[in-house]
């Protein structure tokens, strides 16, 4: 396809696109050319301008400069509706269904035909969707798949997928990739934004690489192109530091008599049943689970956001009852939610966001010691290397920097235990590395971290132990040495460790699906 594509005229051709937010240039000179029938990867580090470019192409925001040709005709896409008419449809990182409406009403709202939608939903691996379900009650991963199905149902010429697989468990992600691949084969085009090289090499024909708001290269996806893309993305600063292997000395620290947190028979409604485990000082315990297996409820219960319906949580040997997150915070337990928009006051500054927990208690409502606060906040900003160019409003930061702010808050507050729920979702490789390093450092300083991740390869980089949850139950706990990706994948599907049957999720997409998908 790539060879014949050379002669075709592009479906979409954008050149010289620029966008400023006040003094900050989000895009300076971006170009993107997509041929019919191709899956085109759009790549770049955090804040390189990928999301901005997609928003401009689909009419969500207006460019300050640049030219956009669709099928050779200059088009001025002034609104998402105009983008739709031009045949461009996005699926953004955040779910776009209106939470208070049921799925059917959401479809009507956008004039999406129902039957094709249903067919796509089934195709994408969700067998039991009730169109009368209110969007609010549907898990995040499924919502994203519904967004995709909704876009596919109107048969757009160019489909733009922004981190489509980022929050998806492996089983759904696999289906999504398969469907996206077939879009390309059908003569339509897909613009695919992702940080996962595995997906890009399996899926895409070409890649456009952005750096600091500029297109720095367009490459054909051939084996071994990853190095080149990384080089382009990072420019001169090539970073390939793996997290240092944990030294024996570091490991020796973590052998205290009493666990920091002891969870016994924890139960939350029907979602979580009889979960028991310990979290020790100085360790990072990984939680591995497919989407919606009860990990959300586990974290919420530990954070004091919801009340468990049974079981106990002991903190430093004392039984704890959390009625409000403040109770957990007082016990030194901080929660970093997976969804950044849940944790940040978007219109406020970086500083105010980081300092937010300081003002929470009634006795801290008085005058703020600005100097002390600034020092603490700057310390945290420095430690996480937050890009503070647009610090006046957190919403102007890139996703990765926003995520750093949510973590920096608890570094500044010096929390003893941090519950990190998928902190690396949809952020670039460099920032991910920094977060891994930070979590290891925290453990090195005697803190404890509970770390849920939807990317299995992260487990070995960060964790000491792995806790596997499946169907609301804790099915296995094992040391990280045994936690290679196949082992984790098997465990996440609830298969016993040590059995030899081949799961074949990553190896062969068309292999028979395990029966126990949620």
């Amino acid at each position, binding site marked *: 396809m790539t060879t014949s594509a050379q002669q075709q005229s592009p479906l979409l051709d954008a050149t010289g696109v620029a966008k400023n937010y006040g*003094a900050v240039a989000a895009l300076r000179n971006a170009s993107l050319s997509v041929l019919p029938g191709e899956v085109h990867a759009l790549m770049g580090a955090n804040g390189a301008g990928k999301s901005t470019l997609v928003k401009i192409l689909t009419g969500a925001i207006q460019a300050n400069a640049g030219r956009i040709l669709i099928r050779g005709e200059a088009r001025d896409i002034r609104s998402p509706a105009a983008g739709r008419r031009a045949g461009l449809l996005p699926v953004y990182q955040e779910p776009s269904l209106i939470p208070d409406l049921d799925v059917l009403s959401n479809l009507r709202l956008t004039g999406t035909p129902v039957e094709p939608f249903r067919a796509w939903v089934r195709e994408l691996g969700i067998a039991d969707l009730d169109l009368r379900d209110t969007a609010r009650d549907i898990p995040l991963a499924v919502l994203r798949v519904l967004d995709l199905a909704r876009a596919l149902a109107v048969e757009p010429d160019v489909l733009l997928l922004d981190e489509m697989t980022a929050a998806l468990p492996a089983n759904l992600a696999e289906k999504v990739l398969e469907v996206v691949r077939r879009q390309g084969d059908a003569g339509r085009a897909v613009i695919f934004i992702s940080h996962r090289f595995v997906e890009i090499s399996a899926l895409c024909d070409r890649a456009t690489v952005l750096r600091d708001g500029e297109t720095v290269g367009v490459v054909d996806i051939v084996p071994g192109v990853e190095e080149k893309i990384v080089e382009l993305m990072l420019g001169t600063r090539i970073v390939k530091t793996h997290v240092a292997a944990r030294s024996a000395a570091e490991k020796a620290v973590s052998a205290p008599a009493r666990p920091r947190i002891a969870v016994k028979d924890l139960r939350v409604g029907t979602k979580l049943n009889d979960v028991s485990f310990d979290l020790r000082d100085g360790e990072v315990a990984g939680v591995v689970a497919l989407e919606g297996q009860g990990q959300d409820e586990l974290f919420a219960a530990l954070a004091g956001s919801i009340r468990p319906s049974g079981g106990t949580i002991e903190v430093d040997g004392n039984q704890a009852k959390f009625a409000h997150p403040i109770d957990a915070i007082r016990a030194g337990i901080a929660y970093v939610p997976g969804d950044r928009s849940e944790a940040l*006051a978007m219109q*406020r500054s970086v500083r*105010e966001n980081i300092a937010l927990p300081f*003002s*929470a208690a009634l006795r*801290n*409502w*008085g005058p703020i010691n600005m100097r002390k606060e600034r020092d603490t906040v700057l310390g945290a900003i420095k430690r996480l290397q937050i890009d503070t160019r647009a610090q006046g409003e957190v919403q102007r930061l890139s996703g990765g920097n926003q995520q750093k702010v949510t973590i920096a808050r608890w570094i500044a507050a010096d929390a003893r235990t941090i519950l990190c729920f998928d902190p690396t979702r949809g952020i670039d490789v460099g920032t991910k590395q920094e977060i891994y390093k930070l979590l290891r450092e925290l453990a090195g300083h005697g803190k404890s971290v509970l770390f849920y991740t939807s990317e299995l390869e992260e487990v070995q980089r960060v964790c000491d132990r792995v806790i596997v949850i499946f169907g609301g139950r804790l099915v296995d706990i094992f040391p990280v040495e045994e936690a290679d990706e196949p082992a984790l994948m098997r465990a996440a599907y609830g298969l016993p460790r040590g059995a030899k049957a081949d799961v074949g999720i990553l190896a062969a997409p068309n292999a028979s699906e395990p029966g126990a998908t949620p």
Partner: protein
Amino acid sequence: MSTSAITPVPFGRRIKRFMADRPLVPLIILLVILVVILQILRPGIVNERWIANTIKFAIPLAILAGCQTMTMLTGGIDLSVGTVATMSAFIMATQIVNQDPAIAFLLAMMPAVLIGLVNGIGVGVFRVHPLIMTLGTSLIGTGCLQVYQRTVIASGAKIPDFLAWLGTGVTPIVGFAFPNALLLFVPLAALIVFTLARTGFGRLLYAVGDNERATRLSGVQYWQVITALYVTSSVLAGITGLLYIGLIKAPSLSLAEPLVLPSVAAAVIGGTSIFGGRGGYTGTIIGALILTVLTTLLTILQMPEGARRILFGLIVLFVTAAYLRIVEER
């Protein structure tokens, strides 16, 4: 980021950006323009006495608009301020007849604290929408006041001298007549500005209005913030009532009621978002001044009352829309 890194931009855009960075500038310009128009229409009207008078009338509005600013920062609104101000004024004027001033003051502030507490608990604990909650307590308060009025009909009312001095008096300082109300207003305004910018409570107001869920995860207890906020708002409204009765000098059952919607308008014109999380008190003060000058302007135009209101409404809409366009152009 330094401006030197940016290629030269057209003059118009530069002005826009300048104004977006300093949202007070366009408001002050508007205020000056209004005063100039007034001076052109009625040469000589803008003198020392007029300025003192304008300030006197702007202050009660500005304090009530402060209540709206603070509640609006959390995404709320306080429609009970008019009733609360009226109640405290009316109770003060009737109780002073045969009570010690201090006792009369405490009695006058009681309904303010009570209504603020009920508002706060209703909004913060039972999650009633602030609009409904404060409208409800406002109606209840008005009803109670009517009942109360019958019990004091025999004893009559009078305006305490101190309040008349504070509300209407001026003190000449270096040849300029300063309204005494500034003695109350300047420290109060400074306190509100300081609270919003430099205290934990102020931070929480912004943060709660921006993202309540995020504040909860940071350990903020919503009901505490909201209860404290609505009590503060009500107490400020009560104090405004006392000041206002000193200015108007005629206690009635709807004394401060006409100030309620202008107080919301002043906060909105001043750049406080009604959806929460954005705004400040300095803008609100200028907003209150703008509305006061505008009222004078429309009065001297000698239009029928109806036309005046229509024009007032149109100008408020226009100013707010234009201002938001300027400030949010980033």
